């Protein structure tokens, strides 16, 4: 959510540095904005294209009530907003909420949507969370990294510690730790394992496997199915301009695989399961993604991490704190948005019939084909398995 907030701020006035303004906000205001985003989430309950949306659908992720439904929350929301950027973001969140009828959209979206859990998984694989934990640790315990050189950096430090390296305040949607699940690192890994049957590519700082509860009910077929899906879509991309002879593109197979992915992901999301964790974790990782996304933030200058790209900034910071970032961080950063958006679209069910498949491999302005190309390229590099080659099966 934080990258979306920054974009809103950047677009609100000429010369506005959205990330910089956002990172000056008080952690209480940032928490309130997350709460407002949850309150204004898409919650379509009626028919869309004659289909009743089940809880867990992208246009109806959860029925868990937000802060605004409470006595305390109603009073808080009724108060005037500070004019430091909070007002701009709050207006964008409220404007996103539209009345339910008539069904003007294909997806049924009628409010705020957040990234798919896969976004958090990809960004966390760069090791950005552990690297910034060391940054915060060093700044708070000594002067090995120097001292934060400005009020803005001091503000970033305070907010980052308060929002992401301590237990969240109770009663808010962000409160996903308790006596039952005390370790938020383990809770994230548990969510990734349930949704994708994938663990992060790193363990503890001393290279031991990280202990967490592994659920029995997990999408153990996700990777195989997703890779088969990528391979079939690549065949479509290769042959999109093939108008003569046999065409190996198989729309029915693409639809079968998309439906399989849809079914397994939506099974994990039954009755809105995992939506809250997803909301919190994608927001958390987007804060760190945003921090390394630009050279203009004072904290990047203080860390002497100016560079041409997010991964190069992260590599510099990692070197300073003595914890290496993942060597394929560029690929993780580059794949995160595309794969998030494609999985959300798969969860709408629109690719469950062969008629929808051509959209995945046919170039169209603003369509999913470009995102598919990005995913195929980076997934192949990350996994070391070439998605542009036919799978070889032993006979």
């Amino acid at each position, binding site marked *: 959510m934080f990258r979306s907030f920054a974009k809103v701020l950047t677009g609100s006035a000429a010369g506005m540095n959205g990330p910089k303004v956002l990172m000056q906000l008080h952690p209480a205001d940032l928490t309130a904005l997350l709460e407002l985003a949850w309150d204004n989430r898409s919650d379509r309950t009626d028919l869309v294209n004659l289909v009743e949306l089940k809880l867990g659908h992208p246009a109806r992720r959860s029925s868990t009530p937000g802060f605004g439904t409470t006595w305390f929350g109603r009073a808080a929301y009724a108060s005037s907003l500070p004019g430091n950027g909070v007002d701009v973001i709050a207006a964008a969140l409220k404007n996103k909420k539209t009345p339910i009828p008539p069904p003007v959209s294909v997806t049924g979206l009628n409010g705020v949507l957040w990234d798919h859990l896969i976004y958090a998984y990809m960004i966390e694989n760069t090791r950005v969370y552990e690297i910034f934990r060391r940054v915060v640790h060093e700044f708070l315990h000594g002067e090995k990294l120097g001292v934060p050189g400005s009020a803005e950096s001091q503000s970033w430090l305070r907010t980052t510690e308060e929002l992401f390296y301590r237990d969240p305040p109770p009663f808010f949607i962000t409160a996903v730790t308790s006596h039952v699940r005390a370790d938020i690192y383990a809770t994230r890994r548990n969510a990734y394992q349930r949704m994708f049957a994938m663990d992060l590519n790193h363990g503890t700082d001393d290279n031991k496997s990280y202990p967490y509860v592994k659920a029995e009910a997990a999408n153990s077929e996700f990777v195989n199915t997703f890779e088969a899906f990528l391979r079939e879509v690549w065949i479509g991309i290769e042959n999109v*301009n093939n108008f003569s002879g046999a065409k190996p593109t198989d729309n029915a197979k693409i639809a079968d695989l998309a439906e399989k992915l849809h079914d397994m992901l939506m099974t994990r999301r039954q009755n809105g399961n995992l939506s809250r964790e997803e909301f919190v974790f994608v927001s958390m990782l987007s804060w760190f993604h945003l921090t390394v996304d630009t050279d203009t933030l004072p904290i990047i200058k203080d860390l002497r991490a100016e560079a041409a790209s997010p991964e190069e900034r992260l590599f510099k910071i990692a070197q300073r704190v003595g914890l290496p970032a993942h060597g394929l961080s560029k690929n993780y950063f580059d794949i995160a948005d595309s794969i998030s958006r494609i999985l959300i679209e798969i969860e709408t069910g629109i690719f469950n019939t062969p008629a929808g498949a051509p959209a995945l491999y046919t170039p169209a302005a603003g369509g999913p084909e470009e995102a598919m190309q990005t995913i195929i390229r980076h997934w192949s590099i990350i996994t070391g398995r070439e998605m542009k080659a036919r799978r070889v099966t032993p006979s």
Partner: protein
Amino acid sequence: MGDSINVGASGLNPSNQTVVDSLTEIMELFRQQVVNKTPPPLEGVADQAVQAFREINEALDLKPAPKR
């Protein structure tokens, strides 16, 4: 070399004529491919899927809902 050669109206051996016709057909398909490199516009559900992807992008970027 001593076999007789049947010559058709076009002045070619009929078996050669078949080859020429096939090559002409292939060349025409190739020409069409070159001329018509752009795939036909998406229709129906595939077109809706493109629209859905745009809606998802706009929702994630907190842009106002598109007017349709």
